[in-house]
């Protein structure tokens, strides 16, 4: 048995917060912290990486990726580096007794991982997928059992929150069975979230971590984690590859989502500093869309030949398209890969469908379809949604990732205005990145990576800017988890830390005081309660704006965010804004409890916003009379 040495945790950059709320205060250092653990809670896969902190003084950081035991089919358990983020809600008669045991439990609450994906590919009505995308989908209650969305009534549903908790629980249990002497709740745990996650989704992720006992877990944005992983892999050499004035564009194209972030390299007293200056919108577009696009292309080809495909054949075709695509991308000499879809019956030879996938098709569908050569002035095409979309994720309507990138860079043109080390040319029509870091399995394909660089560089040369260079050396599949583990090490004061703060400014909607006009909704003003780039551990109070809250009656505010308005201070009131500038999030709600007060009493309060060390935004109402504080809830649809 190895000893568990005591590690003190010097908190860097920790500013004093006057907030007397238990959630704001960072957990005190604990005995027995031995590992820094990074959890990549992905839309399609989860990865857990960890590193021993005992050798922290050796300046040697060697993260490992945990092999996660999981059921792969009924009755068989295998260890894999990735845990597919799927849950399968099996019918009670579907699986034999004792065929779903795991090393740590005979009857797991949910079927998670490879088995869920395998069984779900044949029975999609019982498959819970993309729970993470639902977490930041405004307009649904993330704690209501709504998944699988398309399932018949008798299928037991889970909430996106429960699904997230189930994935974390599986990782926790797996860790426990592999490291019985180092409980996960005593290690430094970092969980990654998309940079575009809104405050409610971040809060839900932290809550899910608490539900499995990880009270000490903190959040980190995925693109930042990818950059940390690159820094860690360069073994101190990163300073040679990045220089003052650089703007690093992190492009993360995963299985289901695309995430964009900008990180500026500045200088402070001779040391290089990294500042995360902008994040993009949450774009539901990724590798799975690409495989599906190829499958539909091949399906159309087969239908031209008069062959009709059944739904299960399309499923199998998607699978073989994924493999064929990788072969074509990895092997430049290969122009044609045969695709076969075996029959479902035991007769293999007669009923097998054969066709092929050509390099021309892959290029046309994937490279031209997803990375079209566009001008930087082009924008993603959005057409009016047809029909009612009550249940379903807001998938990106334009598959052109380069168009989304163009929109992002143009929108964030002013992101570096306040940094003196970054100088954008006068005539620039978009923010010029000087370096690019890729993340996500999709960009392992050179054809796609090269095309993305080609398009970006064509925009740059059109404005006489130097071409952006590609930062290499990252492991595109595992970088986020590795970077998250490295962040635990950085928090001990080792290595460079990316400065970030909130990725948006936040506003509450307030009705303007003006005479009512019949038939018109009252004008609304946006009152800034948290400015852009508010750092972890800081707090802002909005003392001048007083609200009267009625005890016992819930009060709701409309809630807005902006990832471009950097200059707004706390208390700034906006009368007018464009749709581009501010976007509306779910409403927030506050109910003043009755304890010690008369129901119906009006209490004058002001609002206060704090960014916790964990990385979540916390809004409170503060009584002007006696300084009592009440938390404002993001997830107002819960319990309705």
């Amino acid at each position, binding site marked *: 048995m190895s000893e568990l040495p005591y590690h003190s945790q010097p908190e860097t950059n920790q500013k004093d917060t006057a907030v007397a709320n238990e959630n704001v205060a960072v957990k005190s250092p604990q005995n027995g912290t031995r590992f820094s653990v990074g959890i990549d809670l992905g839309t399609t896969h989860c990865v857990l990486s960890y590193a021993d902190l005992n050798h922290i003084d050796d300046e040697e950081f060697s993260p490992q990726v945990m092999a996660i*035991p999981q059921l*792969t*089919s*009924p*009755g*068989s*358990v*295998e*260890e894999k580096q990735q845990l597919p983020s799927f849950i399968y809600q099996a019918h009670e008669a579907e699986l*034999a*007794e*004792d*065929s*779903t*045991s795991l*090393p740590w439990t005979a009857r797991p609450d949910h079927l998670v991982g490879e088995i869920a994906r395998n069984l779900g590919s044949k029975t999609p009505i019982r498959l819970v997928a993309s729970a993470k995308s639902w977490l930041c989908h405004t307009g649904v209650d993330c704690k209501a059992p709504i998944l699988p969305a398309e399932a018949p009534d008798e299928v037991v549903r889970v909430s996106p929150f429960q699904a997230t908790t189930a994935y974390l629980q599986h990782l926790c249990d797996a860790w426990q069975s592999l490291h019985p002497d180092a409980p996960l709740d005593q290690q430094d745990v970092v969980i990654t979230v998309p940079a575009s996650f809104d405050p409610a989704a971040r809060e839900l992720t932290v809550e899910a971590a608490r539900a499995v006992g990880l009270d000490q877990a903190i959040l980190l944005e995925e693109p930042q984690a990818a950059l940390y992983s690159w820094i860690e892999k360069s073994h101190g050499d990163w300073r040679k590859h990045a220089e003052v004035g650089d703007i690093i564009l992190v492009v993360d194209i995963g299985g289901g989502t695309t995430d964009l972030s900008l990180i500026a390299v500045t200088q402070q007293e001779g040391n290089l500093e990294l500042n995360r200056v902008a994040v993009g919108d949450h774009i539901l577009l990724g590798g799975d869309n690409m495989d599906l696009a190829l499958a539909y292309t091949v399906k159309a080809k087969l239908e031209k030949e008069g062959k009709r495909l059944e739904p299960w054949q399309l499923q199998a075709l998607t699978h073989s398209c994924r*493999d064929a695509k990788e072969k074509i991308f990895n092997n430049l000499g290969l122009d044609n890969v*045969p695709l*076969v879809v*075996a029959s*479902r019956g*035991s*007769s*293999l*030879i*007669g009923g*097998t469908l*054969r066709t092929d996938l050509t390099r021309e098709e892959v290029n046309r569908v994937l490279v031209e379809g997803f990375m079209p050569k566009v001008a930087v002035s082009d924008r993603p095409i959005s057409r009016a949604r047809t029909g009612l979309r009550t249940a379903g994720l807001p998938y990106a309507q334009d598959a052109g990732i380069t168009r989304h990138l163009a929109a992002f860079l143009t929108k964030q043109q002013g992101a570096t205005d306040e940094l003196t080390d970054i100088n954008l040319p006068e005539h620039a029509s978009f923010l010029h990145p000087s370096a690019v870091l890729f993340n996500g399995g999709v960009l392992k394909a050179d054809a796609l990576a090269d095309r993305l660089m080609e398009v970006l560089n064509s925009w740059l040369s059109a404005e006489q800017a130097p071409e952006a260079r590609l930062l290499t050396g990252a492991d595109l599949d595992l970088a986020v988890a590795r970077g998250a583990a490295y962040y635990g090490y950085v928090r001990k004061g080792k290595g460079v830390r990316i400065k970030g703060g909130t990725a948006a400014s936040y506003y509450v909607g307030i009705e303007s005081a003006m005479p009512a006009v019949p038939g018109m909704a009252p004008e609304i003003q946006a009152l800034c309660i948290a400015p852009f780039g508010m750092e972890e551990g800081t707090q802002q109070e909005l003392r001048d704006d007083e609200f009267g809250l009625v005890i016992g009656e819930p009060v709701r505010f409309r809630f807005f965010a902006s990832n471009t308005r950097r200059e707004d201070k706390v208390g700034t009131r906006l009368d007018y804004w464009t749709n581009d500038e501010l976007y509306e999030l779910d409403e927030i709600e506050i109910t003043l409890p009755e304890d010690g007060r008369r129901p119906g009493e009006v209490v004058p309060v002001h609002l206060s916003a704090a960014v916790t060390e964990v990385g979540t935004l916390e809004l409170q109402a503060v009584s002007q009379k006696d300084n009592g504080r009440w938390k404002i809830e993001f997830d107002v649809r819960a319990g309705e």
Partner: protein
Amino acid sequence: MNTYAIDLSLKPTTFDLWHVCLAGTVVLLLLILIVLLLSIVISQIRGKKKSVIQQAEPIVKIVEKIVEVEKPVHAPIPEPVILKEATPDAALQLLGLLQKEARFIDFVKEDITGFSDADIGVAARVVHEGCNKAINDHFTLAPVRSEQEGSKVALPEGFDAATVRLTGNIVGTAPFTGTLVHKGWQVTGIRLPKLTSGYNAAIVAPAEVEL
């Protein structure tokens, strides 16, 4: 009452009753100790003999197969050779994996006489691709000899006869030189799925019923 005061300067000058008793006890204990030690040593030697025999087993088995018992193998002790019995579960599990990934059983059990080579070729792709995946996922394979096939190789004295099989004109003594006909394969890593208690390995592929 006698009072016994301890005086370390005193020395016994003759054997009195007490000292005779003491000497007797010492001799007795010494005897017991020797007997115990001897019994432990003997039991260990026996145990070692057994394990040596067990280790030698696989070699004995292979020799039997190749030589087809022309000469009886002279073992020093005529104890019965216990051949290892392969557990059926692992074999069934491998069949299950090959069927799942590659439709292996379906392919082998199908009567292919009536089909054209083109049709069989299409199905062979499914089987080849799947077998490749199943084998790569669960085994790490490496060649036994790294030399090019067809090149000359030298086998020193005491080479491992289990990893290199001699064929053809086997005369003389080692070192041998010969042509590498097949580079050989060895499994260097194995990652078979673990099985739960409810797993019925004999069901290589469950029947599928769509509702």
